[in-house]
């Protein structure tokens, strides 16, 4: 059905640890993995699925490791990738960092986890909080009495254990919205020598929001989250205030999906501690929060001149923090000179970027940066890519979509009062403005 075996390899292709789940693929097949990958890389055509004979390798890369699943069946590929990423998540929760050393330092636990995460190619319990209840790193301290299967493992509520206690019952809700933006660029050619680049129009923009929880609640609380969801309002017939149309919503395992499907109610028993409750996608066009106008003039064999104007197109009361405008420059550029109306700019040669940083950028304001670079008289023959200008920022206390938490109802049979806290933040996602270099 899915994986026959799972391997963790270092960058040289050496097996650090592996687990054979089904025994229908020769474990030595893994030796073909790296050579295959190298060949693909040479051709510039890597692919997350490779095959050798009738063995298929499905792989992901994490830090200095390859995680590889082998199979010789028509396996469920999306399940395998979802599983491999889950393995990364679990290992990271256990060892803080998942890398070559942490595998070796913890090989006993790694084996135990691999045994518990998957059986005969079927993924089993992959919730790290629950796993930590019966697979602990302190192996030697393990008392026989303690090592019972938590009933949670097989419960319908497989993500929360019973008997959790807090003195103060609270839940923290973070609503985080990321803006993805793609703006086209165009080039004008002047005198055949100078290339002027400027930005064009918005090609696509969307918002990906997530609702994260930090739950510090006792017992088995029933929670209900109310958002200003347009579909919900339409359903209940109420019509006050601003609502938001969510294009697509994805929920944590704990949310009752059929309930949401029928009446848009988000009801759940939350996992303890931190978790991502939901994510959503919004298609509505919004004005780019930070608009960049750039003119990049390239005088061949002589210099590049860059002018970047950044404009905060959001409410005056809000402030964007840690704004970073990253402008690509030719790889053979030298002797940078900068002039900024605010913040400071620097040249990062290893990334071929000019990076302009503004710590605090109030809404409605406009700033300017000029840079110039020298170019060698003998031009670089190699074709260079045309990386886009990218922008990073975050704006606290604000959601660009206008989404709001209207209520969070918390009901537990012991009847305690619990406090929900809400925080909003908007940040840049994939925020790209195409340039033509």
């Amino acid at each position: 059905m899915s994986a026959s075996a799972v391997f963790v390899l270092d960058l040289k292709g050496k097996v650090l640890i592996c687990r054979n789940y089904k025994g229908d693929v020769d474990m030595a097949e893994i030796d073909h993995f790296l050579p295959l990958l190298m060949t693909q890389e040479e051709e510039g055509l890597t692919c997350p699925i490779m095959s050798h004979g009738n063995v298929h390798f499905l792989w992901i890369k994490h830090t200095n490791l390859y995680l590889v699943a082998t199979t010789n069946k028509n396996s469920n590929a999306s399940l395998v990738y979802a599983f491999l990423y889950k393995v990364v998540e679990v290992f990271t929760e256990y060892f803080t960092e998942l890398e070559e050393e942490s595998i070796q330092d913890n090989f006993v636990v790694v084996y135990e986890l691999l045994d518990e995460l998957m059986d005969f190619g079927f993924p089993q319990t992959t919730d790290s909080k629950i796993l930590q209840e019966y697979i602990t790193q302190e192996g030697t301290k393990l008392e026989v009495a303690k090592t019972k299967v938590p009933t949670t493992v097989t419960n319908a509520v497989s993500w929360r254990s019973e008997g959790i206690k807090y003195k103060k019952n609270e839940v923290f809700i973070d609503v985080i919205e990321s803006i993805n933006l793609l703006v086209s660029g165009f080039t004008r050619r002047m005198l055949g020598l100078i290339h002027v680049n400027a930005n064009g129009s918005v090609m696509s923009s969307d918002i990906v929001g997530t609702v994260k929880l930090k739950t510090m609640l006792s017992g088995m609380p029933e929670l209900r989250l109310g958002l200003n969801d347009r579909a919900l309002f339409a359903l209940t017939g109420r019509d006050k205030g601003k609502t938001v149309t969510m294009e697509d919503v994805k929920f944590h395992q704990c949310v009752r999906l059929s309930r949401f499907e029928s009446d848009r109610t988000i009801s759940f028993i939350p996992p303890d501690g931190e978790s991502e409750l939901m994510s959503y996608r919004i298609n509505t066009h919004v004005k780019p929060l930070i608009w960049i106008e750039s003119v990049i003039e390239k005088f061949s064999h002589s210099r590049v001149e860059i002018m970047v104007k950044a404009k905060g197109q959001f409410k005056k009361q809000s402030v964007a923090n840690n704004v970073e405008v990253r402008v690509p420059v030719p790889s053979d550029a030298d002797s940078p000179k900068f002039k900024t109306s605010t913040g400071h700019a620097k040249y990062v040669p290893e990334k071929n970027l000019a990076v302009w940083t503004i710590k605090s950028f109030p809404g409605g304001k406009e700033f300017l940066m000029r840079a110039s670079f020298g170019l060698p008289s003998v031009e670089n023959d190699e074709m260079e890519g045309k990386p886009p200008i990218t922008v990073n920022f975050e704006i606290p206390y604000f959601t660009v979509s206008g989404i709001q938490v209207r209520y969070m109802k918390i009901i537990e049979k012991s009847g305690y009062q619990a406090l929900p806290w809400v925080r909003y933040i908007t940040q840049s996602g994939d925020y790209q403005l195409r340039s033509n270099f």
Partner: protein
Amino acid sequence: MTDSKYFTTNKKGEIFELKAELNNEKKEKRKEAVKKVIAAMTVGKDVSSLFPDVVNCMQTDNLELKKLVYLYLMNYAKSQPDMAIMAVNSFVKDCEDPNPLIRALAVRTMGCIRVDKITEYLCEPLRKCLKDEDPYVRKTAAVCVAKLHDINAQMVEDQGFLDSLRDLIADSNPMVVANAVAALSEISESHPNSNLLDLNPQNINKLLTALNECTEWGQIFILDCLSNYNPKDEREAQSICERVTPRLSHANSAVVLSAVKVLMKFLELLPKELDYYNTLLKKLSPPLVTLLSGEPEVQYVALRNINLIVQKRPEILKQEIKVFFVKYNDPIYVKLEKLDIMIRLASQANIAQVLAELKEYATEVDVDFVRKAVRAIGRCAIKVEQSAERCVSTLLDLIQTKVNYVVQEAIVVIRDIFRKYPNKYESIIATLCENLDSLDEPDARAAMIWIGQVPRSAQTIHSLGGVLFQVQLTLLTAIVKLFLKKPSETQELVQQVLSLATQDSDNPDLRDRGYIYWRLLSTDPLICHIGSLASVYHKPPNAFVEGSHGIHRKHLPIQHGSIDTGESPVSAGPVVPIEQAQSVIPSQGDLLGDLLNLDLGPPVNVPQVSSMQMGAVDLLGGGLDSLLGGDLGGGVGGSPAVGQNFIPSSVPNTFAPSPTPAALSSGLNDLFELSTGMAISTGGYVTPKSVWLPAVKAKGLEISGTFSRRQGQMYMDMTFTNKALQHMTDFAIQFNKNSFGVIPTTPLPIHTPLMPSQSIEVSLPLNTIGPVMKMDPLNNLQVAVKNNIDVFYFSGLIPLNIFFVEDGKMERQVFLATWKDIPNENELQYQIKECHLNADTVSGKLQNDNIYTIAKRNVEGQDMLYQSLKLTNGIWILAELRIQPGNPNYTLSLKCRAPEVTQYVYQVYYSVLKN
């Protein structure tokens, strides 16, 4: 202190040292030693010689140590099978441990020890664990059954583990259900024809309930299993879809994709005019788009699947072309895939945007990507005629860049555009010629030469190209046709030709046609594999999975009958035999047929079967070709004398999947439910052979025969006599669809030539898994027999008693209830005259034919016999036989939900009692 210390042992005498430590008196020391052993194993050292010492450490109450020892066992048991036996006791003991964690660990590990000798010892512990009180143990045991099946399938079946597994589908714990489903699905992969999972509406309901409660992985197992189910009608399909759609909101992308698979498949069953159909289509788009914000590998799988979905149902994503615009930081495999989807979604409405994007990509640095982008511009020109001019001018702009490979690719593409739209863009030739010198690739040069010839002899070249193209097109069509007829032999050929036509051909029309065929032949079945490797490779599983040839082909369901009648359709279940028709998809069969006949006209070899009314029409009217299969085995194979094109028997079924005769009563629907009889030995009444096919009608071949049931097996017993002057060879037989789905189990066992005036006795075993069609009379069977001379047709009546199964004895209580339950108008009375037997003899005689006497009553001097019998298709017939002393006329009352059959049952009574 970390575990890494265990990796640093001094090389010299390492094994010896470890051996000593493993036998140390102190527990802690032993555990340390086992860790060192495992560490050595991890880095690939051979520590198998320590087997007995490690196994000695197995008896411990330290869970961690136990796990390590088990790990060692899994690794080395296979290389030390004799010593692995030592571990058996420990497993058996651990399976009884009070701690469920240890019981589960034991049952999980023992299934991983792939040593045949050991497995039999594991049956008892496994049996207990399957019934364990702890769900954690049960879910582990469920998986263990699949493991054991992999090692010794026979044993698993003999021990009844498959039944236990099936029972677990009704388990109260969702995780147990999910794992049982996973295990059964896995096992059924190697049992292509069995209905292991027994997917019936009750079980489906259980699965749908568990779907809401189990883990994300369990949901995937269940969804994948659901996608193999064929709902009986649109209502059932819709209700399943309604319960599956909430899964589209799951955070796990694999859950989403598996849900999409179920929905895409069941969409086939929903009529397009249904509101729900459109609602569902709309629901599919947002989750597919969201998959593109996942990890790059997840995006890749999603894109490959979207590519298939877009081909099948372009309407789902036609508004979403922007999400497929390439981002600078996308990995190359994502970029190339997005490009492909962009072209598929390109239309007049969005072509301006698409072209602007493609032009942007064509100035990137990645050569492969750039070339593909340039080619894409050409494909747009050919796909969207209105855009051709724009495409040409875009290509000219690109040629101005003077980037070598861009220029070359653009010139190749322009040639294609010239061919598609002759005499339109020739004015640009001069511009193209400027680049003559830079062309160093053969393709580009050839294209330029072609273009260069245009002004001088545009007409000639064009017509020549035209002729060639016609030939290619005809050839392509012919090969696709051949594939439909002989799928197994020509699959490779057809794949080759299609890839030539679509990738290597420079003729856009040919490519388009190739794509259409390819799509028709392959996309649809691939939809059944959404999320799997097949969907990523865009190949059917048997193209890359060894040993899966000929088994387990998936197909999209078929929308039954006409929607208006609303009758529940016939035989949606396991009988629809799509098996041999490879990946050809039924619902599009007509379309394909039309396409195939586009160029070649009259010889309609794809039968347009309509079996709506008269039984015989479909078979005999459809032409000889449709009757006999080329895949009948030895009888026909390779006979050069057969001048006809024989279509595999399954093709007609594929194209006309048992439509619903509107007149069918609900009783008859019962009739078509299949079930298999139990095999207990009896020998029933056999009518004497009669001549079915007289020699005068069959160019000298005479066939006489009868039907019988022996040891629970049905036979057609025949005598073939050659009354001609020449010898006869190459015999083959085929049945038309019939009321009971009777088909031969084997090819006709005549392997030697039949000499003149020679006779041969043949016993042809039959089963009832064939396609079903109501015949009139009900027991009529139409048969075609072929030999080297010709094809002959005859029909015979099957005495119904060969369908009386051995387990036809009904419980008394059930009998009473059923009798009451069947409406009185279904009761029919018959007289059997001049019969001089007493009640006991009657019972005895009838029992030989699987008519069972349940009770005998004496009412007012009359003997009343209450009897039951069951047909192979699961229909019960209840009988009351009244015998009055001194009266040779018996009265037979028959009650059945399908009263059509009673008259034939009466005939059986009559012939049994009168002979």
